[in-house]
């Protein structure tokens, strides 16, 4: 507006002369100039993907309906496509996408707002929320030095042993408390080891890569181990229940996967992957130092300064074990989300963590995002969009003979790996879940196996920094380059995929009988 008044002032100072049409033209020209200055073209450039996505959405909605897809199905499909583009390109803050999904469900699909609101909060979402609060509570306990002490005590000083120790301990912890928690805790341990070895970053490039990627991949592969390892697992469990469970039909009870059942399916795969992590990393980056005696000795001194375990530390360990036991033995009755929320309250009641810290440490947008993504996923099932895509996909797969068994598994795993490397793995499972489950139905495969393949493959985001939470946190240390992830990541993807397919072939069918 400042510009407009400026023009007005200048007009008063120099009253326009000449014929009325000259005046009019001049005035119009000035108006155009003012408008030009007020349009921020760079805004459109920055947000170009938002407009491209909206354009694609508009085109999709105006296309004629394909065979076998209802009007509502088309709308849901469009919303998913637009959401996927926005997830990948992030032109707007991601929680905005969640809000848009909610608005879209009400305005485009015409669902009652109360029903949409109800569909946002499920046990899975409660579980994701509770786990995040638990994660902050655990990181805040500063147990990292104890863990560091444990690792160097167990492993000695050889680089390969230390790296394996880091991967194992990170993995075991991450499988229960989530990969982001452990990555945040272990990052300083790793960096301290590197810094104590040499002050010159260029001289420990490879060592840094091995140690930090041990943390990162140790956590990533562990995320599949238990439902609390990552949001995606909870999402898949929720989908199985919503898609296949029917209280009146005892045959469908096997689709109710609880904490322990999930562990039986997935934990062995994580354990088998562990040795490969260290092996592949040592092969890819040959560390400059094969012995870390000096660094480990100095780390020991640092850790010893902490003194013995305090009562609050023991209390944390106690809470942690209690939560674990409740998850394993009681979550099938009271729900996993309930346990997570109960655990978070216990930490707050015992004053081990302040609410302010919890509030600042959790990104609540994620909860919103997963809630909306799951809600959209369920709409995909309700409207038949998921089944339609699944059938179309199956038609596509027919020529290459991948409509059942091994071929289908490879395709599903490949598709998931592709998607998960471009967006957060929880979002990938939330978007792909309904499609692959319907695909399993259409191909007459076990939805359990296909579901596991999807949620396990979604952990194969080793290639990019944004893929998994652990990668993002470790990358924030500034010691790694994006190419490091690519270099080691593609081998990891291959090994993990082969191991998972072996499990799908030999182990899971035997369990799912």
């Amino acid at each position, binding site marked *: 507006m400042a510009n407009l008044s400026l023009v007005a002032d200048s007009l008063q100072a120099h009253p326009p002369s000449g014929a009325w049409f000259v005046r009019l033209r001049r005035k119009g020209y000035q108006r155009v100039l003012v408008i030009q200055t007020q349009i921020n073209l760079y805004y459109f450039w920055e947000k170009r993907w938002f407009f491209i996505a909206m354009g694609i959405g508009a085109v999709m909605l105006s296309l004629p309906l394909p065979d076998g897809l209802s009007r509502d199905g088309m709308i849901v499909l469009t919303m998913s496509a637009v959401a996927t583009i926005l997830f990948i390109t992030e032109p707007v803050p991601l929680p905005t996408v969640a809000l848009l999904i909610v608005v879209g469900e009400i305005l485009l699909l015409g669902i009652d707002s109360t029903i949409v609101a109800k569909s946002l909060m499920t046990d899975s979402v409660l579980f994701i929320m509770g786990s*995040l609060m638990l994660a902050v509570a655990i990181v805040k306990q500063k147990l990292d030095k104890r863990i560091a002490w444990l690792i160097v005590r167990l492993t000695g000083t050889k680089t390969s042993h230390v790296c394996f120790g880091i991967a194992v301990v990170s993995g075991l912890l991450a499988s229960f408390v989530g990969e982001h928690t452990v990555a945040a805790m272990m990052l300083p341990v790793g960096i*301290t080891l590197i810094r104590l070895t040499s002050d010159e970053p260029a001289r420990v490039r490879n060592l840094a890569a091995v140690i930090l990627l041990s943390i990162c991949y140790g956590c990533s592969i562990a995320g599949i181990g238990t439902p609390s390892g990552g949001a995606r697992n909870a999402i898949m469990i929720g989908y199985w229940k919503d898609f296949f469970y029917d209280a009146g039909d005892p045959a469908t009870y096997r689709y109710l996967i609880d904490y322990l059942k999930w562990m039986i399916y997935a934990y062995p795969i994580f354990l088998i992957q562990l040795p490969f992590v260290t092996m592949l990393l040592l092969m890819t980056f040959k560390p400059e130092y094969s012995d870390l005696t000096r660094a480990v000795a100095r780390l020991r001194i640092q850790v010893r300064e902490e003194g013995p375990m305090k009562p609050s530390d023991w209390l944390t360990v106690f809470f942690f074990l209690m939560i674990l036991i409740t998850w394993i033995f009681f979550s099938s009755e009271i729900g996993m989300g309930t346990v997570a929320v109960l655990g978070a309250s216990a930490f707050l009641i015992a004053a081990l963590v302040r609410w302010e810290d919890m509030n600042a440490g959790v990104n609540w947008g994620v*909860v919103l995002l997963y809630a909306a993504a799951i809600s959209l996923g369920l709409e995909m099932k309700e409207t038949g969009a998921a089944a339609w895509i699944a059938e179309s996909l199956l038609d596509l797969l027919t020529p290459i003979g991948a409509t059942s068994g091994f071929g289908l598994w490879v395709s599903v795993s490949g598709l998931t790996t592709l998607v998960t490397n471009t967006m957060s793995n929880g979002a990938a499972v939330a978007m792909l879940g309904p499609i692959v489950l319907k695909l399993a139905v259409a191909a007459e495969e076990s939805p359990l196996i296909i579901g596991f393949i999807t949620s396990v493959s979604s952990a194969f985001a080793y290639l990019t920094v944004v893929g998994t939470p652990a990668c993002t946190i470790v990358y924030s*240390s500034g010691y790694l380059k994006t190419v490091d992830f690519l270099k080691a990541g593609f081998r990891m993807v291959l090994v993990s995929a082969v191991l998972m397919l072996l499990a799908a072939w030999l182990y899971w069918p035997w369990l799912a009988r």
Partner: protein
Amino acid sequence: MAEADYDDWNAEDTVDHAALDTLEWRRSRFRVLVCIDGSDSAYDGLRFAAQVGKHEECDIVLLNVRPFDQGLRTGGLQVRLARENMLNWGLEVPGVEQLKKGFDLLLEHGHSAQEWDSRHAHSKKWGDPVGDSKIEFRSDANKRIVLKLKVAPDVASGILDQYELGPYNLVIMGRPSRWQGEFRSFFDAGVVQKVAMLSVCSTLVTRDYAPGRGFLVCTDGSAQSRNAAKRAAVLASFCNETVTLLSVAPIPEKVEKAERLVARTKLIIEGSGVPVAETRVRVGEPIETIIEEGKDFSMIVVSDSGKKRLTRFLAASVAFGVMGRAENSVLNVR
């Protein structure tokens, strides 16, 4: 001037006279922005800046931009939690180390900044707990060396924002990790490419900078390019480098014209008191020829004649082609 010219964090949104004076004063200086990302080629760029920056009227600003932490990518746990944890262990924010190393490098090159007056400033930006911070060293003659750590939504916009805070004459960046074609850059451009495209001032991309082998100044005869050649020649004399002029004729029939252009540009350069060591005229595809000819020089100097994106899109810009594909340092004069 003492307090007034001191950097106000948001010189652009508090329009007071102090800020205006600061900007006015900065315009009178030759200001070099060196973007440090910890890579070797970025430090090469810094070495060049140290060379140029020996002159009294030159200020050097070392910048490290950190994209702010996004909790969503970490599955809902804020990165600041990890960062606080690191601070508890006595580990610093990445970037601090890199800036320190850069500063040491400047000291090695004879900038005795550690004896100068220094000031710190800090501000929270983008809700990030670490925020922006900087240390400014000032000599008695009011020459400055600034170390700045900045957070931004992404690195390229951080660098471009820094330009807005005070006009710079030259932005120096290290080797780009990727450089897309004109079409792909619309959707997905690397940091260096984005800054090179959008920056208002001259940009230098350093790759294995080896001083002492001279500048190859390319000219296409346009008024803009003649002006650019003149400014590049002055810069070359600043760092004791020889100037070699090159003009490339796309077809043999235009050789004569190219020779005329080179001769004219040579006169202009020599008019500003800088000797021209050699002039060359070649025939061939401009981008490839320039890269081939420029291999053995310290630096290739090109000027994009102020082409807008659309024009570049329709007729690929030689300057950008050279910047992206050359094996050694390229200076794009604007």
